[in-house]
């Protein structure tokens, strides 16, 4: 596909795309660092994640400004319009991912390095791994403009949800065993919930990237299993 007649239009679109990629890389990094700091009880790393979020917010604002300026100046049409609108949406998803990673990092102190943490590290780690893979896949496929892969990736979100349900039940069990566990477990529960939310945002990004590339919306209803809302028996 040839460039625009107005070359600076291409440059402006390129700058927005580059920012999205940077945010994607940063988001991946923050998510891995946050889980790592949680599992290793690494307060220093947690602190770095918290400060990274500032840069994340800044990048999102930049994208918003550039996108709005571009719409005002160029009145983009068709794929360009989708690219700009998609970038705004993806940036806000990525920014939310950054927030959630920061939230996990903030809980590192509260969870502490107790027994609970070691007992759970395996299941949380697995879940975090899935979320990281999901996020990395979405970002890679966005960068590589691979629309079909995005459709498959979206379906993978289900696995994260399943894992989250498992972690939820496990934590419930611990809390019932010993009320002293309630505080760290609640924090861990939030962390797990945050990871699950990160997965959801990744899915959103996948949907937006798909629309951006193909020009069609993916169907809204996707199979989603959240059994935690039913406290007790799953159906």
């Amino acid at each position, binding site marked *: *596909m*040839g*460039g*625009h*007649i*107005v070359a600076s*239009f291409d440059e402006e*679109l390129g700058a927005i*795309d580059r920012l999205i990629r940077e945010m994607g890389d940063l988001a991946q990094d923050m998510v891995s660092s946050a889980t790592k700091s949680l599992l290793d009880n690494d307060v220093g790393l947690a602190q770095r994640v918290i400060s990274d979020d500032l840069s994340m917010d800044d990048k999102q604002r930049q994208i918003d400004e550039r996108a709005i300026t571009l719409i005002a100046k*160029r*009145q*983009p*049409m*068709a*794929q*360009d*319009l*989708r*690219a700009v609108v998609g970038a705004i949406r993806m940036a806000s998803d990525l920014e939310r991912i950054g927030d959630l990673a920061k939230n996990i990092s903030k809980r590192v102190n509260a969870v502490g390095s107790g027994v609970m943490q070691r007992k759970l590290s395996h299941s949380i780690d697995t879940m975090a791994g899935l979320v990281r893979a999901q996020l990395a896949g979405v970002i890679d496929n966005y960068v*590589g*403009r*691979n*629309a*079909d892969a995005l459709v498959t990736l979206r379906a993978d979100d289900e696995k994260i949800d399943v894992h989250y349900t498992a972690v939820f039940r496990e934590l419930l069990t611990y809390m019932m065993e010993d009320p002293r566990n309630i505080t760290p477990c609640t924090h861990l529960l939030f962390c797990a919930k945050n990871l699950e939310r990160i997965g959801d945002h990744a899915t959103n990004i996948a949907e937006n990237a798909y629309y951006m*590339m*193909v*020009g*069609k*919306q*993916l*169907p*809204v209803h996707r199979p989603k299993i959240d059994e935690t809302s039913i406290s007790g028996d799953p159906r």
Partner: protein
Amino acid sequence: MTNIAKSENTDMNMSSGPFVDVANTPKQQRAPKARVTAQNVNVFYGQKQALFDVCVDVPDRSVIAFIGPSGCGKSTFLRCLNRMNDTIEGCRVEGDIKLDGQDVYDPKIDVVELRARVGMVFQKPNPFPKSIFENVAYGPKIHGLATNKTELEEIVVTSLRKASLFEEVKDRLHEPGTGLSGGQQQRLCIARAIAVSPEVILMDEPCSALDPIATAKIEELIDELRANYTIAIVTHSMQQAARVSQRTAFFHLGLLVEEGPTETIFTAPNDKRTQDYVTGRFG
């Protein structure tokens, strides 16, 4: 962004397919009743062919926009619909153009009658160098649409009202139409066209000589007129096509490249040429 074109373009009639939300599909996307149908229209200027096998339906009571780069044949096609091309020496039209099922190029059809049914508004506002009243009254007068003076006055006032011009000119109906501003002149031309109650109104770049405010007024007017008239508009402004039309046809080098609901053409067109044109990547 280079991969978008590679990604498979789903066909238009996939509206029942898995990826289209039926509830969100705009009303206009459902095939409307056609008022004017054009089948395999070929136009020649002397030896040079200007249009190749164009097939378009102009749907009833809606706006269809013809877009495309200069010299793509969109104006030529528009002028085929009321046979304004007849006045151009050496212009030859082949194919079927039907207005309500009646062949427009039938030798039995009277051009004068056809043009009373298919009105036209031109690129440059071209009011007659006469009074505002006479400008609007001229069409009804020559076609004998008014039997007496009161009726004629009624037609003029209604037409000016429909063209949202009456309030601005009611105190100076007998002043020359050429004394109005560009935008008012163009609305006067629209009033003049609708005074003969045409079924179809053709507009050839009606806003290209106007400032943005006047353009907005004309666009608003086109939107209102849509309720009663079938409108075909040629425009160079893609934003305008996107704003005023329900369907859009993209012409390129004498070919009709793509025709479809305006939303589709401007957000996710099927043809690469359309995509390149609407995004500003042409040439």
